[in-house]
């Protein structure tokens, strides 16, 4: 690892090729961000950046790589306009997207907010691809360009490349082709089957997006091929063990044929499956005949609807790590932009005015409103993440007695104390190994709890009022930490709904189960969601006999709390709203 001086030497070598030399970032780029920089006379080096933005990336890259040894994808810096930013926002930061009215809504919303000045556009958007795409707005100031490059091009970038959720769940090389395929496929389907048809399927998929992911990379449910092999095996077994004599003497011939029938219609026992959309794509009676359950997956002849479902599920899977690591990701990016810009200031690459601008902007982004402020809108992930990362550095370098007591049992802390690790290696391990939930539960220290004045409120519908159960004092630290970690546990945020059974041999009903934790029931919108599930599962113009049933079951008592069903049950039974005794 280099010191500042060694970095500076390398940077000086690079900047010596330009007319403005070391002062280059203190001056405006010539005319436009894309205009070539003036070379110093006699400079012959080739393969050096031609533009201001390119040079900024290169210089920050020297510090990031040489001083901190950050592992990143290569960057592609894109200079964009405000309209482009609104577009990119609308597509949740995706470079391309298919056509659906809901994106038009987002776009209209973003545009309206931007026009009214309610929303300062983010200065950057970064896309988890390889190479990593970093969007810079052309209206950014010089300092903002540097900040964005450090924040996105190195902070987010290193997180994308190293965090286990991203490396295990998503393929950075795959996302652009996937989106391109999806976009093209949607367009093709619209041409072939009509815009309305496609829109209906997409809308239904969107309703299930939160349940179109596999949370843990566990083995998939049995593939149709395996199921068929299983059936085939059983049939062979029966055939081979067919004893004519025994048959004649003990059973009627008819029952033997029953036996074969049973073998071919063997009830497919499925494992609980949390990926509702994918399951529907695989087994929906609307799109698969009984005897070809999902056998067409990924093969020619597969209905376009199920192909589409699978593609949307893939897209959801891609986003899943982002949802789980919001705090860490932003914290990591903020931490690194803070370090890198600080280093640039120390090396006198930016002047006092720019540093002031940096601090202003930095603290603007990292503001946490108090819960009773009218601007409060939940935790600011930038702030929380940044504070924890900064705190880790502090704990590694200057632990207090409190820290020693709090973190004393943690392996990483012991390693640091023993001189086997330093803050940088701890930091990098965290980036690789953790997600928001575990990150908070392992690294939130009493100091951060105190500084942010965190407290826990317990809200039970049975009680008349809510109760403060813990505040930032010695008795409360652990409770606060655990409650906050719990808050970032996605399983607590998203209702746990799984496919539990599929009546394969009779009416092909789909059984879903909602596991109710701590009495948290579903909101009424579930009826609309089920309508969409039913649409994908079986409903067609003629109506269908394959029902969709959702039972809410208490996680502790196993008692059924609610039941929803489509099509609505006869005999005055109101589906869903009935509480079981």
């Amino acid at each position, binding site marked *: 690892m280099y010191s500042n001086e060694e970095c500076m030497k390398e940077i000086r070598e690079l900047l010596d090729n330009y007319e403005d030399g070391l002062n280059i970032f203190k001056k405006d780029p010539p005319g436009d961000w894309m205009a070539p920089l003036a070379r110093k006379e006699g400079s012959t080096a080739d393969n050096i950046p031609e533009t201001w933005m390119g040079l900024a990336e290169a210089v920050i890259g020297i510090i990031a790589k040489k001083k901190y040894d950050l592992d990143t994808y290569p960057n592609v810096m894109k200079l964009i306009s405000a309209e482009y930013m609104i577009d990119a926002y609308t597509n949740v930061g995706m470079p391309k997207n298919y056509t659906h009215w809901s994106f038009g809504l987002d776009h209209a919303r973003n545009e309206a907010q931007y026009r009214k000045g309610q929303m300062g556009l983010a200065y950057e958007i970064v896309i988890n691809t390889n190479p990593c795409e970093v969007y810079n707005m052309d209206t950014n100031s010089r300092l903002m360009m540097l900040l964005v490059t450090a924040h996105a091009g190195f902070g987010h970038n290193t997180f994308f490349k190293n965090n286990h959720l991203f490396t295990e769940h998503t393929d950075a090389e795959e996302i652009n082709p996937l989106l391109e395929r999806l976009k093209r496929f949607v367009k093709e389907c619209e041409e072939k089957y009509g815009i309305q048809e496609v829109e209906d399927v997409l809308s239904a998929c969107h309703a299930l997006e939160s349940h179109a992911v596999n949370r843990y990379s566990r083995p998939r449910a049995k593939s149709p091929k395996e199921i068929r092999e299983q059936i085939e095996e059983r049939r062979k077994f029966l055939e081979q063990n067919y004893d004519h004599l025994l048959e004649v003497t003990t059973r009627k011939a008819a029952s033997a044929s029953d036996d074969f029938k049973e073998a071919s219609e063997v009830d497919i026992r499925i494992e609980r499956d949390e990926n509702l959309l994918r399951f529907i794509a695989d087994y929906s009676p609307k799109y698969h005949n009984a005897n070809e359950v999902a056998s067409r997956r990924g093969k020619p002849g597969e209905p376009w609807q199920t192909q589409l479902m699978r593609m949307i599920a893939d897209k959801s899977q891609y986003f899943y790590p982002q949802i789980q690591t919001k705090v860490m990701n932003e914290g990591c990016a903020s931490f690194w932009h803070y370090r890198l810009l600080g280093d640039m200031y120390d090396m006198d690459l930016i002047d006092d005015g720019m540093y002031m601008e940096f601090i202003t902007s930095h603290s603007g982004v990292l503001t946490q409103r108090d819960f*009773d402020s009218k601007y409060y*809108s*939940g935790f600011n992930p930038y702030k929380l993440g940044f504070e924890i990362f900064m705190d880790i550095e502090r704990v590694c370098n200057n632990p207090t007695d409190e820290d020693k007591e709090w973190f004393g049992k943690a392996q990483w802390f012991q390693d640091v104390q023993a001189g086997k690790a330093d803050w940088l290696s701890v930091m990098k391990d965290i980036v690789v190994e953790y997600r928001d939930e575990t990150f908070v539960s392992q690294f939130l220290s009493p100091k951060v709890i105190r500084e942010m004045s965190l407290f826990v409120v317990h*809200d039970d519908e049975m009680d008349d009022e809510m109760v403060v159960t813990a505040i930032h004092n010695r008795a409360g630290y652990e409770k606060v930490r655990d409650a906050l970690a719990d808050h970032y546990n996605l399983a607590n945020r998203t209702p746990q709904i799984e496919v539990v059974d599929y009546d394969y041999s009779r009416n092909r009903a789909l059984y879903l189960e909602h596991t109710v934790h701590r009495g948290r029931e579903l909101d009424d*919108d579930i009826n609309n969601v089920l309508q969409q599930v039913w649409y994908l599962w079986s409903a067609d113009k003629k109506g269908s006999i394959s029902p969709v049933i959702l039972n809410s079951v208490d996680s502790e008592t196993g008692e059924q709390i609610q039941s929803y069903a489509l099509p609505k049950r006869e005999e005055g039974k109101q589906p869903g709203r009935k509480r079981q005794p």
Partner: protein
Amino acid sequence: MSVVIDTRTGASGKNRASRQRFNERMRKSARDALERKLGDSKGFKDILDGGIDVPIPQRDLKQPRIGHNPQKGSKDYVLPGNKKYRANDGIERQQGGGGGRGRKASDSGDGEDDFEWHLSQQEALDFLMEELELPHMHKKGGADAGHTKPQRAGFVSQGMPNRVDLVRSFSQRIGRDLAVNGALEREIIKMYEQKQSVLLGYLEGTDENVPDLPAHTLTNNIQYMDALRSQTDFLNDLVADEISDDDEALVAAIENRIEDLERRRAGVPFLTEKDLRYRNYVQVPQPVTKAVMFCIMDVSGSVTEEMKNNSKVFYWLLYKFLQSKYDHVETVFIRHTHEAEEVDHDNFFYSRVTGGTVVSPALRLTDEIIKKRYSNVNEWNIYAAHTCDGDNTSSDNNAVTELMHETILPQCQGFFYMEVGTDDDSDRSKEPSTNLWRTYQRVMKANKLENMWMAYSAKVEDSVRVFREFFKKRGVHQTQNKQKAAAFNIA
């Protein structure tokens, strides 16, 4: 080496398709919302100022999602910024704001509010004018060079690839084939026949069976050639032993010649550029529907600024409507006091004059202009709109009646009268009882042509409604409806 890409140009519009889908979906909601907004004059002013925000009800944008019911069960919130609470303090449950419900407030967020959709002036006007048209517009006028329609006009040898006519091109090919290949084939046949006659000479007197030849017709060159080839080959084999050196040389020469001809024949392309024929189109001028709108506005002293404003809103909408919906509509602006003059757009809308109110000069001027410029009544659909405070000089009423019956109505497809008043006119539930209103009403009752409409406007928003009522699409049966339908009264 860092890569920098400039995507500022040509990049926007990525979401245009989604935006259009959304617009389509929102169309009805937006129109209803716009309608509500136009109930007050501010709404219209917003449109004039360049755009309007219309609220779209949340239910129209609903996308179902799986979520917890925030009211149910027990949960723990972590909140930042504690100032006064100690452990075990109770917090009263409140809806939104204050207390400890911050978490909940953020969960529901602003998503519950109606969404304000910004319509640009053009979009808003499009919505307003979607269902509007000029009534009775059925006369077709003379041809207009600016309005043409492509018409087929035979074939040409050059053109765009998408206009290639295959049938025509292939018949062209067959012709060329007959001409070029046919000559070669005939030559080859002649050669074979020479060879045949040489070889047959040796067989005279013998009883060898020679394969028959099909008859040579105009169309079977190729089959005949093939038959000749196999026959001569057969003969060649037969007489190979006895043929003389001279004849052998002759046959060889003939065969050389045939080979040469065959090679040339093979060199003739199947289809050449010259065979291609393209469908030809010419632009033929079409008869168009031409219309003229007379905008007649009373600007006399009795008309207050507010009333003038109402008139101007009406004419502004009318002008925009004609501009956006009809290519071939001319507008004539006439303003009148006790005398009438034709003015241009700017003067009509912006300049000010005063004087008494006499209507007949304006009608007379209208008639004169029709006679002068739009005299070909069969070609022109003529419309006139008149706004006035109704305060016509009593002595003029007879002249107005006569002009309307004799000249204006018979020449017009539609005559629209909007009377402007003020908000504080007493008893607005009744029809106005001004001189001009009563006169026009008598005219309308006596008029058999059903081409006259009148209404009353006291406010800007009335003018918008009157405008839309005047020009709403009327089905055939509606236009046949009695004048009752036409004589409605706003407010």
